[in-house]
């Protein structure tokens, strides 16, 4: 092939090399690094004038770094007069609203170290002691959600009750997360986040338990709240806030958990949230599509895009390759009893995908459905896609730290033990179909926190499955997902190499199997470059060989 250059970004050079090997050409040289001030530096070492350029970059590791690097590479090739620039992004960034995993106290998991949290802009502008907030009524001073800083803005109409069943349960201790460090591997040696308390107030409380500093990510709110006083009965903000470290499991949790849950969009309080504005998380899919277009990409190749409607966000052609034929072939080759197996979708959203594979193989299909009904004493599970638009009330589901001595008898993470919710959580996954005595193959596109897969596996095992395997296209497995998989009842996890898997393999050993999508991508690149049709790649009868 002439006039073609395949570059690799720094996210997944192994896959790029595999692609180039199949194309029988060398990887084009580029120097990728960072300047001293952390700006990305890109130097393209070969001429790309009038060439077709393919840049392979996958969304893993630090996604923002990877994305900016990709954009700069595209831009560099564009102004170096490349003829056409194709971005090959096997795992697409910001393709969905990720399920926000939660720490014990309800705060969304983030990479921010504890010490930095108080510098965060997570705060509500905060009811300063100024007259501004008081003009909206005395209630506002104590509310964690003062109405907007511009006075005179009418409050959004709301229900009378501020205390919802959810908040009440949090307060009463029916649901009581504990606290763990961000690393989640050691048990609560420091408070994660200590919302609703100013450091001064909490430091006295800390001294009894730990010396670590307690940042307040909601500090401004904390200052306004009298700690411990109950000025008005029903207002959640006036609940006394125990220091997280001083209470063990089962004690009332700070309603800061609810506050943070609200901020993160996971905890939806029907009606009023103390001020009326319903927080929402920004979905950046369209923005990423625009950025790629503006940088100069002429074509996008991706694999198993989470939401196929994404293709419409772009102004350029998008080839959304499918690994389905590869999965089907893998199942036939590696499962001796595949004819009697059951394909299971771990949630309702993936039913279509899983059922297609089941049809191709001609075997049975089952589905696991997350119960979202609110029933007494049990919290519903967080919506996988984090859509706050659901009117169900959800509660942040806190993951148990792996090494926790108070870990529930179940190995997989569930809402904290010691509450009725433990039992409720397992039973609120409904299995539709029968799996008793059969091998189950879970099919999903993304395994990020692996809550879905592990919870589904638990449900299948308690419904009588003999073996549970999971085939996932993108094995992102961030945070402590790998440990979660290790401790779960999943017998085998099969992922593609759209995301580098060496680190995961070290921890999971034989439990993890990787199949190569380099062949599919290489074939797509070859055909696109030669101007041939790639519809054969979607044909289920023809699947490229997989390397283990």
């Amino acid at each position, binding site marked *: 092939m002439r006039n073609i250059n395949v570059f690799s970004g720094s996210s997944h050079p192994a896959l790029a090399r595999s692609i180039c090997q199949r194309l029988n050409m060398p990887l084009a040289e580029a120097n990728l690094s960072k*300047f*001293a*001030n952390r*700006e990305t530096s*890109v130097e393209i*070492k070969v001429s*790309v004038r009038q060439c077709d350029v393919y840049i392979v970059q996958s*969304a893993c590791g*630090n*996604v*923002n*770094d990877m*994305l*900016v690097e990709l*954009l700069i590479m595209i*831009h*560099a090739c564009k*102004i*170096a007069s490349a003829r056409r620039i194709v971005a090959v992004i096997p795992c697409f*960034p*910001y393709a969905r609203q990720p399920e*926000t*995993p939660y720490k014990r106290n309800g705060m*969304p*998991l*983030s*990479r*921010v170290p504890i010490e930095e949290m108080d*510098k*965060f*802009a*997570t*705060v*509500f*502008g*905060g009811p*300063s002691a100024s007259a*501004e907030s008081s003009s909206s009524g005395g209630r506002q001073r104590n509310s964690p959600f003062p109405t*907007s*800083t*511009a006075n005179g803005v009418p409050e959004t109409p709301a229900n009378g009750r501020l205390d919802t069943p959810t908040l009440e349960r949090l307060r009463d201790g029916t649901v009581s997360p504990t606290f763990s460090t961000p690393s989640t591997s050691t048990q609560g040696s420091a408070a994660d986040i200590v919302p609703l308390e100013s450091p001064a107030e909490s430091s006295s409380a800390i001294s009894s338990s730990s010396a670590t500093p307690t940042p307040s990510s909601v500090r401004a709110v904390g200052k306004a709240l009298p700690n411990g006083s109950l000025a008005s009965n029903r207002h959640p903000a006036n609940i006394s806030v125990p220091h997280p470290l001083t209470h063990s499991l089962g004690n009332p949790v700070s309603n800061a958990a609810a506050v943070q849950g609200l*901020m*993160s969009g996971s905890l939806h309080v029907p009606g009023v949230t103390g001020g009326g*504005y319903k*927080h*929402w*998380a*920004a979905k*950046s899919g*369209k*923005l990423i599509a*625009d*950025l790629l277009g*503006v*940088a100069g990409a002429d074509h996008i190749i991706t694999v198993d895009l989470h939401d196929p409607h994404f293709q419409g966000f772009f102004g350029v052609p998008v080839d959304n390759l499918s690994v389905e034929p590869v999965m089907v072939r893998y199942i036939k080759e590696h499962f001796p009893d595949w004819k009697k197996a059951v394909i299971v979708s771990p949630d309702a959203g993936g039913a279509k995908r899983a059922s297609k594979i089941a049809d191709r193989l001609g075997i049975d299909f089952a589905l696991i459905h997350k119960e979202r009904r609110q029933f007494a004493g049990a919290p519903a599970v967080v919506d996988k896609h984090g859509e706050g638009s659901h009117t169900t009330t959800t509660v942040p589901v806190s993951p148990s730290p792996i090494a926790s001595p108070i870990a529930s008898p179940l190995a997989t993470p569930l809402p904290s033990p010691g509450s009725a919710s433990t039992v409720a959580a397992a039973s609120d996954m409904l299995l539709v179909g029968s799996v008793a005595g059969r091998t189950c193959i879970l099919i999903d596109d993304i395994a*990020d*926190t692996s809550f879905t897969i592990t919870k589904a596996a638990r449900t299948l095992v308690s419904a009588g499955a003999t073996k549970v395997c999971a085939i996932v296209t993108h094995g992102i497995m*961030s*945070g402590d*997902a790998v440990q979660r998989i290790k401790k779960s009842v999943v017998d085998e996890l099969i992922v593609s190499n759209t995301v580098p898997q060496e680190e995961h393999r070290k921890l999971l050993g034989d439990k993890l199997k990787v199949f190569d999508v380099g062949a599919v991508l290489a074939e797509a690149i070859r055909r696109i470059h030669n101007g041939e049709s790639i519809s054969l790649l979607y044909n289920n009868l023809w699947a490229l060989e997989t390397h283990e």
Partner: protein
Amino acid sequence: MAQTNVLAGHGSTTNSIKIFAGNSHLQLAKLVAKRLGLDLARVAVLKYSNQETSVTVGESVRDEDVFIIQTGAGEINDALMELLIMINACRSASARRITAVVPSYPYARQDRKDKSRAPITGKLVANMLTKAGCDHLITMDLHASQIQGFFDIPVDNLFAEPMMCKWVRDNVPECKNLDCIIVSPDAGGAKRAAAMADKLGVDFALIHKERKKANEVSKMILVGDVRGKVAVLVDDMADTCGTLGKAAEVLIENGATKVYAAVTHGVLSGKATSIINSSPLTKLVMTNSIPHEDKALLCPKIETIDISMTLAEAIRRTHNGESVSYLFGNVPDGMGELDVVG
């Protein structure tokens, strides 16, 4: 500030200022908001476990005048993505106008194609900001003011010069009896240094790197006379501070009594603080366009000039539709020094 009686540009009803802050410089944002008498708008900018940025907006911005304060510092790519996502979120939430306040513009140094296949990342950032939905950009001391031309939207390139001049007048007593000299540490900054020298009414000198053969260390040559004078090095950015440190040595060798450095953007990456500490510099003055409290702890020579009043004035004037040109030549009178600890 929250309620203005001046009818804003478009739309017939008055709207209010909403200030969003990203994670790159929350402290500066708080200062700016304080100067304006406002609270920061409610937003949570965090990361999901897979490192994707998550922006949760906590208050309505429909038809409001939104200002997003984010500087290119720390993890610059994260800061850039946070800014873009916040702009995009406000755009899709029907804000009337979105202004990005970026005191230190990211990737400003990649502003031209000086070798084959070099990306003009400054232009790419401009494209991305515009595409995300930014309507206006406020920045300070762009590395090259031509970067304003990369944008199709209006750009306000504020100057730190008035504040630097004020600092020199207040803190370098030799300035009054003209025993002071402004020096540019490289040829590229000559114009900037000369302008400041004119303003202060003092002399001007320049240090120039002599490019010898490839393996030889280039010598720094002083053009001008600094004997018996207090020298003030002026530059827009202090990154690794190699140039600054060497320039200070050259000036002392050539007879300067004391050497100060006044720099707008203090990046101070790598070993910069130890280079400054071991150099003959008396003081290094920087604006707080980039947060550097941790560096200031390591280097007692660092002094900070607060730009929050200038930014707050720019925001106020932009919102009210007043002229900003006052800020190009004057330091706005503020409430005095605010507690810089955020």
